[in-house]
């Protein structure tokens, strides 16, 4: 098993494609249909397009605070590709590629970042919990989802996403501990993007790797090149399969880099060197996958140009729709507090509604 072959204690990191798209070990290359390989490429490109445009919309004053993903597309798309439809995903807030990979409508995602809770109401057949902002708190939900599945006799697996900083939270510990104790079918996916806002890795932990932390909880961890979509996929695939077979949780550290700011309100030039960013740009996940696909004759500049243009238009269309109809309906802010409004809420609802109606705001 990869988790055994790539022990974090031996300083190993699973990598299939190097930064220039060369295959390092042919035996590790997963059997992915060509059609899917192209789709993965398109999803990464679509993610990047949407991400860049979201940043632009924010800078144009059209979008609210947004958490960019650039540089982490392989971690997100590759891991999500390893999940079955029945599997559960408990995201943090920087997983645009995973959302898109699982089939969530971009309009819904934008609606969330536009400031409307309706953006968290994903389609009923997509198993993604809403964005979870309190760091690592969602890890426990993933454990609960997997525990419930097992108690109900279902072979569903859950995946929790969090960052390098998220491993410092108590809930990370409690989640891994519980998962270890109950052998929960949970994949803990740490996107180690090197920075928690302005704080570098060595202020988050004295551990050599994040992956090794799993061993303290009685299960296995693996560090993968998070900018190599093939490595991310195979590691996640193995973890998911092990979970499904009842072999318990796995911790995956996706070694990657956040090329952009933490959020649109962050200025990373204050705390990190441009040179570091440039180095990581060289390791870009899309770049190396493009070369790999081109060599396999599955991708070309022309295809990319055409797809990016289409994506651009589609993103634009989605965002415009959000802009046109994305404001929160007054009723909605009262409607979902409880299954049924309490008498108190009914009264307040009427009172506030009348106030805004009188002023022509409703």
């Amino acid at each position: 098993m990869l988790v055994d072959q790539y022990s974090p204690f031996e300083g190993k990191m699973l990598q299939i494609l190097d930064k220039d798209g060369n295959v390092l070990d042919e035996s590790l290359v997963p059997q992915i249909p060509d059609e899917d390989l192209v789709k993965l490429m398109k999803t990464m490109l679509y993610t990047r397009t949407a991400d860049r445009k979201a940043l632009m919309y924010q800078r144009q004053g059209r979008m609210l605070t947004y958490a960019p993903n650039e540089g982490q597309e392989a971690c997100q798309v590759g891991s999500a590709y390893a999940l079955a439809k029945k599997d559960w995903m408990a995201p943090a807030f920087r997983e645009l590629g995973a959302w898109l990979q699982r089939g969530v409508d971009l309009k819904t995602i934008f609606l969330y970042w536009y400031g409307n809770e309706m953006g968290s109401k994903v389609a009923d057949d997509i198993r993604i919990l809403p964005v979870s902002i309190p760091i690592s708190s969602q890890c426990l939900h993933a454990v609960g989802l997997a525990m419930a599945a097992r108690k109900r006799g279902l072979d569903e697996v859950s995946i929790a996403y969090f960052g390098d900083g998220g491993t410092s939270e108590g809930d990370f510990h409690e989640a891994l501990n519980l998962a270890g104790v109950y052998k929960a079918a949970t994949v803990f996916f740490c996107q180690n993007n090197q920075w928690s806002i302005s704080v570098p890795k060595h202020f988050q932990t004295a551990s050599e790797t994040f992956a090794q932390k799993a061993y303290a909880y009685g299960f296995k961890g693996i560090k993968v090149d998070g900018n190599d979509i093939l490595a991310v996929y195979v590691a996640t695939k193995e973890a998911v399969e092990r979970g499904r077979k009842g072999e318990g949780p796995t911790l995956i550290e996706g070694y990657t880099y956040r090329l952009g700011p933490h959020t649109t309100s962050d200025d990373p030039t204050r705390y990190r060197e441009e040179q570091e960013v440039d180095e990581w740009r060289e390791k870009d996940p899309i770049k190396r996958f493009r070369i790999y696909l081109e060599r396999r004759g599955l991708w070309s500049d022309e295809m990319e140009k055409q797809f990016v243009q289409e994506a651009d238009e589609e993103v634009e269309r989605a965002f415009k729709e959000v802009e046109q109809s994305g404001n929160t309906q007054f009723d909605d802010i009262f409607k979902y507090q409880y299954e049924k409004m309490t008498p108190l809420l009914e009264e307040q609802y009427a009172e506030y509604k009348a106030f805004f109606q009188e002023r022509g705001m409703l």
Partner: protein
Amino acid sequence: MPVLNNVQAVNYALMQEMERDPSVVVFGEDAGYEGGVFRATVDLQEKFGVERCFDTPISESGIVGAAVGMAINGLKPVVELQFCGFTYPAFNQIISHVSRMRNRSRGRFTLPMVIRFPSGGGIRALEHHSESPEVLFAHIPGLKIVMPSTPYDTKGLLTAAIRDPDPVIFMEPKRIYRAFKQEVPEEDYVIEIGKANVVKEGEDLTIVTWGAMVKDTLKAVEEANKKGIFPEVIDLRTIAPLDREAIIQSVKKTGRILVVQEAVKSFGVASEIIALVNEKAFLHLEAPPARVAAPDIIVPLPRGEQYYMPNPDMIYEKILEVVNFLT
């Protein structure tokens, strides 16, 4: 009909609901094999197996956070936190997720779950075992907070809490866990969450209270009755959503209000009730609204606790004060 004390009534309700609904799971620290430090979950593991009633690591946030995931994935978790003072590590989960999941997901994900724990003081325990934190929960939109005062109510309310489509904080006044017994019907019944109970009708003033203080209030009222004073006593049963109608109706009848709470006086449930009365029954008030509560201090350790806990004598004195206020 079984005659049970309050903690036995908790057990009885859990037993019946686990029997009735296979999606109900019960877990917490010592809640499995041992049946809980207060024996509220005793025999459940033996009867329903370790998959449905189990022990957890000492991990309050973990217990509640995992319950969130389970509730989303088709179970009805009824978790036990060992003491009121140990609920705080779980606050992030409770405030950030338990109360919000329905709203955040616009109804896509709901959390039919119950968080049970023993609450309140008067059992000569260690620090962190005696507080009455109901208002901390009541201040959070999206939660329901229930606190029974009798074995009959305990079963009816806990059953209702388990069946409720929204998360319910079920606070058990541990001081009266074994203080008295009552007939508890074997048949299925629920007590509606959000409805208060007029435990004693009267006309001279309205006393609103809940949990263990109901018993102390009734003691004081008995004394007052001897003096020809007949207070109406309302047992809230549910702290949130508050049965505002019951309180307002009663105050309109009596013109006077006294709220008895075990928690510290300021910024509490009593404050909210009095604000409500002022908003809704202002013109009916014949005396200033009054409170009997603990002083605004940290709960003393057992050798000083008697100075902290509101008692029947205090309630009695306050009844006289309110009734004697001339208008």
